[in-house]
């Protein structure tokens, strides 16, 4: 049997990969994928801990998280589409009509 700490290590690695992707990538779609990695890292945690604690709360919450992640992507793709129509690019550093 694999101890719960290994799952936490795995999820932290996945979360960090996602975070680095968010911070370094300029393509809006890659950004979305990186955020998905971070959300799935949370799902790994929830399921591993649900098994560890012996209750189902975490697993059910993981299902909710997946559904919400899908909804979030749907809205995000819509915004990326209008971004492309307006700026002819999906590089997140291109739109700079407002600066402080």
């Amino acid at each position: 049997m694999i101890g719960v700490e290994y799952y936490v290590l795995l999820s932290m690695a996945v979360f960090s990969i996602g975070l680095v992707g968010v911070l370094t990538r300029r393509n809006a779609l890659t950004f979305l994928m990186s955020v998905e990695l971070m959300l799935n890292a949370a799902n790994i945690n929830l399921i591993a801990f649900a098994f560890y604690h012996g209750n189902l709360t975490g697993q059910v919450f993981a299902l909710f998280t997946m559904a919400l992640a899908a909804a979030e992507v749907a809205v995000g793709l819509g915004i990326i589409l209008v971004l492309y129509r307006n700026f002819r690019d999906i590089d997140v550093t291109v739109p700079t009509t407002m600066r402080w």
Partner: protein
Amino acid sequence: MAIYELPQWAALGPALLLAATALMLFLFDSISPRSTNRSLLAGTAAAGSLASLAVAVWFTAAGVGTPTAEGGRGVIDPTHGFVVDQLALYFMIVVAIVTALIVVASYDYLVDHAYQAEYYSLVILAATGMSLMAAADSLVTIFIALELASLPSYALVAILKDNRGSVEAGLKYFLIGALSSAIFVYGISLVYGATGHLELSAIAEVITDGEADPYGGLLGLGLLMLIGGVAFKTASVPFHFWAPEAYEGAPAPISAFLSSASKAAGFVIAFRIFTEAFPLGEIGAVIGFDWTVAFIVLAIVTMTLGNFAAATQDNVKRMLAYSSIGHAGYALIGLAGLTVDGGELVMGAAMMHLLVYGFMNTGAFLFVALAEHWGVGRTFEDYNGLSAQAPVACAAMAVFLFSLAGIPPFGGFFSKYFLFVGAIEAAAANMAMLVVAAALVVNSALSLYYYSRLVKALWIEEPPATRDRLAQPTGIYAAIVVAAVMTIVILPGFGPVVDAAIGAAEAVVG
């Protein structure tokens, strides 16, 4: 014993009414797609939000959610993930008020807009999410309600899809929102790992019993990530940088909606999560620090950053956006000032501030909406001498700005005064609160500079020689005048507001 008792779920009435209104708007849209019947759509949305407001006020007056003899504090069984106590009803009222004002103002703002039904249904759906956030009592329901409030907001910011500013604002809001909700849900998973529960009261029980002691690191990290998620929703440091862009690019009524209702909803989940799930004292023993330390730092940094950045702006909407960050810093004092044995005064003061802010800030952004409707421009100079042509709206704007600055006869003064008194009171237990109180005073004085700059532009500067006659759109005018009247009359009515806010704070702190 009443002859007829409402079923338990009816306590969520204010939120359910909003949900029903949103579905009704969808129905109109499916019967007559691309309808531009503004009266029907805006009328339905306004009626729905006013009904929600009326029910929330009625429940408050009827004493729904006051602690009962059996020791319960809400009418809904806590295991269902929702609780309707005074705190929930108070914030449902704030959300409903702001929604009603926004919807009425949007009637004129959206004159030539193609997607009317979508706009109103998204506004009402977001309001439903915010209303549910006020009542959510488990990390699951909090997260779902938060997303229900966020997803329509992303779309609303970008709804002017041929306007580059609006699309850019929507993109930035979405990117930072998606990142912060990923961090928030990871924080939830860590808290779940350390305690094995997602209901707030169950988490508190595990922490009090000391069963979470071996997992202090996990719990502390999870707690910091939860603070990150809350900071995004309330537009405070370190997740504030979406706010200036999103508020500037979004349609002005949506900026008003996000900066007032969405911020208030963010604060209610912060109040609930931290006071209920992580009891002060015990949490310090488990993770090594009390979360008030984090909020003291965040409050000072947020209010200073917001006010200093606002002072350097030339664009009115952007100035209001930074001032909204500053006000998030003021409201954070409500969490920073909590102590082991109380703090309902300082938390009640933060809640009062959020209610007054709901009127004055919404009003100020709606004045910007009016200026956009006129097409006069966006900078301070463009606003020069507007009072000659629109004295009523400019008088109302002066009320909002002086109230935001905290000048005595207006509502904003009283909420800031109570925040100051509460912070001084909390300083007895925690000396750092003196610094917070000092920061509040210094920042309020600084904010007077840039607010009065706008008043000066409106009332003292000469108008440019060539300016067309300005229209008098009924909806926006009505919303602005109502907000201005409320900013003033909340003063004689402040007694009940104080009682309601402090009572609601006692519900979670005491």
